[in-house]
């Protein structure tokens, strides 16, 4: 008996979590996949119509806008957050004074929920309330900054808010990485006569490769599941110009009584995430073997 427990205790302890995971994650993924093949409207119903919902999805102009926005948001958000986070980390790593305080300041936005970030930036970017009004009141009468209310530019305000929120977190990741760099390596490079820029570019940044990977994966899934930020900052507007796929999915599933269409958009989002995650997992697992 004791032997049995000793052998199987880990499995027994993990079993409930595993069951919940299997049902609530993979079970519902399968369920959503099946729903996306039905003509479900207000309630799930099981009249299968093949890929009809996907055809309707791709014919929907609002979905096009949401997907385009996701690419703009994904690329700009990841690149800018990475660059800013890396620069902040490198500057912080120069053994400066009050580093702890500064690090906390940059990391703090991460402690706020996206709803609060969105609401705050909504006020900051509102032409009649925020930056534009401030500049005008200070005497810069011609100053205009109204991305929030322009259909072409609204998506960039979401990038601004998301970068503000997340770059401190990226900084913390890189800072941890930089602290782990073997001092002998940097000393050796110095002795070989490398300048600071050369040192970072040729020695330290290549060592940061795992950090880049973690940061990119984390930022990607933050970007793809972004919903609350859009809801709070622009409400998807003006019109539906700043919709992201998650907002599209929610609107059509829950507000528009088109569960089938909503499910198909959710599946496309899942495929999007897998397209990024699978190559990453593959490369990670292969490295461990070698």
């Amino acid at each position, binding site marked *: 008996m004791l032997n049995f427990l000793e052998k199987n205790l880990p499995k027994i302890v993990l079993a409930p979590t595993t069951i919940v995971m299997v049902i609530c994650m993979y079970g519902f993924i399968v369920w959503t996949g099946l729903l996306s093949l039905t003509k479900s*409207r*207000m*309630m799930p119903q099981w009249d299968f119509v093949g890929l009809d919902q996907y055809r*309707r999805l791709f*014919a*929907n*102009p*609002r979905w096009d806008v949401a997907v385009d926005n996701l690419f703009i948001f994904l690329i700009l958000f990841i690149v800018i957050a990475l660059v800013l986070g890396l620069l902040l980390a490198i500057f912080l790593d120069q053994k400066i004074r009050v580093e702890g305080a500064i690090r906390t300041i940059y990391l703090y936005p991460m402690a706020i929920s996206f709803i609060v970030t969105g609401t705050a930036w*909504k006020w900051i970017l*509102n*032409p*009649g*309330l925020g930056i534009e009004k401030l500049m005008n009141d200070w005497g810069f009468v011609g100053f205009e900054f*109204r991305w*929030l*209310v322009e*259909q072409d530019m*609204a998506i960039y305000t979401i990038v601004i808010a998301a970068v503000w929120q997340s770059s401190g977190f990226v900084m913390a990741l890189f800072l941890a990485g930089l602290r782990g760099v073997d001092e002998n390596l940097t000393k050796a490079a110095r002795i070989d006569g490398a300048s600071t820029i050369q040192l970072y570019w040729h020695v330290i940044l290549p060592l940061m490769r795992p950090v880049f990977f973690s940061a990119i994966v984390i930022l990607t899934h933050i970007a793809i599941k972004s919903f609350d930020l859009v809801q709070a900052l*622009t*409400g998807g*507007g*003006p*019109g*539906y*110009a700043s919709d992201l796929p998650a907002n599209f999915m929610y*609107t*059509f599933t*829950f*507000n*528009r*009584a*088109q569960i089938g269409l909503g499910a198909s958009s959710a599946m496309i989002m899942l495929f999007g995430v897998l397209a990024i995650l699978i190559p990453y997992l593959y490369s990670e697992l292969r490295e461990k073997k070698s």
Partner: protein
Amino acid sequence: MMGGVNIISMEKNMKNTISTLAATALLASTTSVSAADVEVLHWWTSGGEAASVNYLKEKLSGAGVGWTDFAVAGGGGENAMTVLKSRAISGNPPTAAQIKGPSIQEWGDLGFLADIDGVAQANDWDNLLPAVVSDVMKHNGKYVAAPVNVHRVNWMWSNPEVYAYAGATIPTTWDDFMVQAKKLQAAGFVALAHGGQPWQDATVFEAVVLGVGGADYYNKAFVDLDMDALDSATTLKVFETFGNLRQFVDANSPGRDWNVATSMVIEGKAGSQIMGDWAKGEFKVAGKSVGTDYVCTAAPGTSGAHTFNIDSFAFFAQSDAASTEAQNIMAAEILGTDFQTVFNLNKGSIPARLGVSRAEFDTCAHDSMDAFVSASASGSLVPSFAHGMAMSSAVGGAVTDSATNFFNSDQSAADGVAQLVASIKAAM
């Protein structure tokens, strides 16, 4: 759940209103089972609305029926609908829920709704309710829901001082609106107070459709979804007019709530707002009086017409007799003159039933009542598609998308029509 009719409160209630009497009589005559509580799902949580619901609660407790409040706030009822679906699927629906328009039919088709025809016949609803109202409340010819009010959506709320200052007059056609709005702008006012949220864009779009195209076109294109009527020169003209309005809205409008737009009219920053009669509550709260501080006129070109938006409670099938009795009492209360008067005074709308005294209502409500009767006779009483009275939520959503995308971009009128037609087809 509290069972058992309280005899004392039953007796008290006997002295109360006629409708309560009728309900209790029904209760006594049909069965000896005592009434249970009612659980009511709604999203009337703001000041005036909450007071209205509370009144219903008091009326019911007078009739010995307890009230379990099931308020789910937010998002114009979207959150509430999500909760309702999960409750209904799990076999535990509330007694009644705030559902309106074609959604009542969708729920009815799924077989969730209760037949309250007994109460309706006992209280003569067929004669109390105008046909347009009772049609919405019936599923397969049986009453399944009770209406609480009728909103008129095609209102224009204006500040007469602003118009006087700018030397403009309140317009009655859309062509005239463009002329007068230019004058307002020249005098430094915002001509059209507007909140750039999809449903508000759709509300203005709907007013333009009715004002430019008339009731026949409105019914054909946006109720019957006739593709020839939708893809026509009239629709093009509608989009041109709607597009002309872009210039009269201020830059800060995207995302603005409707009541903030109303306060621009109240404070004299803007000339007019196109909004349903719930806007009246904002003027009242601000202590303004109708006629001098603000005027209500029909949206341009729609003076004889009436775009209606009816709020109602749909009743869900109950598993036990006691709950069914409570449900019947509630249904009878809702159509009572007391409740209809108090509720609608709070809400700014007009009673859904006939035979309610007009005395306590203001001139805007009188206008709305007159328009309701006359429009009903002339065939220009139309359901509001911006508020989910005319189309399924899928098609209604497609129209809202097209309207809001057009209004917020520099899309040409022809492209606007093309997108509207395509997206309606896709959603049908």
